[in-house]
């Protein structure tokens, strides 16, 4: 079955937003030339930062491992081109909205020489799933949909659950962003190839590729590829273009009509979701031995002359990419990394493109929606909330800093999609408030965990001191008893020895 199907679950709320995508998708993918300097942050993924394994002055080749994954949740980083490591220092990064974070700075030599490939690996379908997962781990592949969760660890976690479906997320519901759309148009075969590798690694038989109905060309290309390879396991599903149907939990609900439990993961209900770009990156790594050193990014917005999708090396600065796209127009005022709904506003264009950067949005001044007014309890926010929360009630508790009620009203399930902000007639920045409140809750939980650990360590230490004291006392008692048993002569002997010791 390779035709687009329509049997879908339902999504609560959501919004139909104007897409603003056609300007960028009208152009093919342009290749950004390798810049003179590449900035590679060591923390490009969720979890522990990678550990640099190169020294300053060292020459590296394209695709060479320069930072190893460290800890249980991490991903390695490879050199995006050949050249010399000139510094490991703090540099503005988009994760911190333009504040500096640790980066490896690579001065490229313009030769772009790739590292010698390892000996020919056997075809992936002859490998055991856990060997394949280890290989994926080494490719530095992370979730390219936005959450940048290290892919190998996500797959390993999923393999411990009862899985039924693999879902490839080609639902790029946020306005302006179109990098997955053009990827599916131009690299549909890689996406499908990645799906086959994932199916093998997970031991699954059903894969749904979900694509929005407003991407007819991507759907068409995927259908062609699927017809060609006629793999019964992979089914294309067309979903309505409603924001945020591309959210992981929302997509699971749309495709399988199963609801992810509060605080749970899609794997709890037998589903694993991967972005289409992640699947393509896995294909590139396993089949062509190209680690994740470049990605497709949308450069768009009304602050640049021509919107386009580019393939740029990881580490290229935003300034370089914008220059490639024709530079800023005079009206450019604001720089956002990511989309208009969930992206981060950054203060400088010196930040590098990282594995997670799906979009660079250059905007002219956005008209202010108006001053924030009191909540009138209209309930519009609850009607659009895709997670079926009550934002007006959560806002109330967030203002009162009432952690218990925020939890019981499901603040931790908020996906920060921003729908409630958009419909609020009082222009209350609900999502920003929720983001702050979530940070506070997390901080409090951390503090509590630390206090609990300190309490246990304090008690353990007290117990140990008591035990030591007890042991010393027992020893002393034993010595005393022995001395007593020996009688007066023995005591005199001990005293004489002690006196001699004192004299020495």
């Amino acid at each position, binding site marked *: 079955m390779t035709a687009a199907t329509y049997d879908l679950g339902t999504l609560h709320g959501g919004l139909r937003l104007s897409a603003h995508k056609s300007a960028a998708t009208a152009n093919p993918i342009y290749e950004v030339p390798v810049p003179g300097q590449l900035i590679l942050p060591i923390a490009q993924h969720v979890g522990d930062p990678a550990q640099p394994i190169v020294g300053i002055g060292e020459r590296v080749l394209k695709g060479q491992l320069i930072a190893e994954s460290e800890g249980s949740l991490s991903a390695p980083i490879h050199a995006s081109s050949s050249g010399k490591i000139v510094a490991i220092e703090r540099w503005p990064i988009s994760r911190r909205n333009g504040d500096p974070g640790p980066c490896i700075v690579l001065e490229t030599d313009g030769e772009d020489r790739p590292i010698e490939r390892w000996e020919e690996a056997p075809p992936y379908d002859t490998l055991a799933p856990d060997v394949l997962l280890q290989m994926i781990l080494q490719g530095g592949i992370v979730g390219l949909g936005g959450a940048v969760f290290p892919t190998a660890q996500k797959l390993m976690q999923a393999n411990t659950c009862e899985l039924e479906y693999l879902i490839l997320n080609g639902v790029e519901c946020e306005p302006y962003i179109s990098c997955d759309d053009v990827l599916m148009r131009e690299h549909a075969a890689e996406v499908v190839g990645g799906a086959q590798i994932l199916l093998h690694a997970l031991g699954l038989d059903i894969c749904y590729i979900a694509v929005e109905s407003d991407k007819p060309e991507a759907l068409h290309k995927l259908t062609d590829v699927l017809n060609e390879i006629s793999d019964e396991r992979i089914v294309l599903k067309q979903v309505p273009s409603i924001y945020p149907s591309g959210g992981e939990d929302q997509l699971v609900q749309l495709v399988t009509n199963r609801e992810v439990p509060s605080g749970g993961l899609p794997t709890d209900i037998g589903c694993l979701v991967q972005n289409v770009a992640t699947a393509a990156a896995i294909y590139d790594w396993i089949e062509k031995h190209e680690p994740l050193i470049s990605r497709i990014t949308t450069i768009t917005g009304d602050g640049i002359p021509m919107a386009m999708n580019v393939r740029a090396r990881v580490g290229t600065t935003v300034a370089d990419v914008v220059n490639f796209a024709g530079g800023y127009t005079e009206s450019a005022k604001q720089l956002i990394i990511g989309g208009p709904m969930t992206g981060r506003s950054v203060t400088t264009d010196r930040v590098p493109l990282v594995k997670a950067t799906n979009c660079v949005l250059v905007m002219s001044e956005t008209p202010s929606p108006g001053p924030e007014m009191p909540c009138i309890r209209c309930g519009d926010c609850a009607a659009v909330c895709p997670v079926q929360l009550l934002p007006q009630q959560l806002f109330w508790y967030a203002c009162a800093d009432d952690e218990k009620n925020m939890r019981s009203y499901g603040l931790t399930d908020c996906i920060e999609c921003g729908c409630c902000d958009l419909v609020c007639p009082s222009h209350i920045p609900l999502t920003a408030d929720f983001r702050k409140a979530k940070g506070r809750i997390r901080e409090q939980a951390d*503090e509590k965990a*630390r*206090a*609990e*650990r*300190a*309490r246990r*360590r*304090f*008690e*353990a*230490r*007290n117990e140990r001191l008591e035990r030591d004291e007890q042991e010393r006392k027992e020893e002393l008692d034993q010595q005393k008893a022995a001395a007593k048993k020996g009688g007066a002569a023995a005591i005199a002997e001990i005293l004489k020895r002690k006196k001699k010791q004192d004299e020495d």
Partner: protein
Amino acid sequence: MTAISIAVLTLAAIALIAGLALSFASGRLPASDDNLVDQVNELLPQTQCAQCGYPGCRPYAKAIATEGAAINLCPPGGDDTVSRLAELLGREPMPLVEAAPVGRSVAVIDEALCIGCTHCRNACPVDAIVGAHQLMHTIISSECTGCELCIAPCPVDCISLRRVA
């Protein structure tokens, strides 16, 4: 005869009701001192810094619960802790005796200066300092509570507090 049986039955019913009420109360209400000490201890920040004058958080909790010690002696806990304690114990909240520190700090040993005397190691209430006699010591910063108890015993003043972002 009926009068006696009515009396016996009434008393038996009262005893039953009272018994049930008591068992319910013992299950639901904080009755024993130990339980209260645990509850108070739960609210304290567990820095074990002894700034309250007691040798750690649990001893202070015990003093609050059983000896009626003041509830405003804990600077690391801040005003939040005072108000939570006041709520738990039904007492009036009062201002802290000493201003609360801002943010979390941990102790750091200047390892070049350390002479390996083990004094700081023995002073640490949460065993967050490792090091042997005449060998360099270091602090496990993830376990350090920033209590400052290691600073005074150091003979070469090589320990300082550093703010954690």
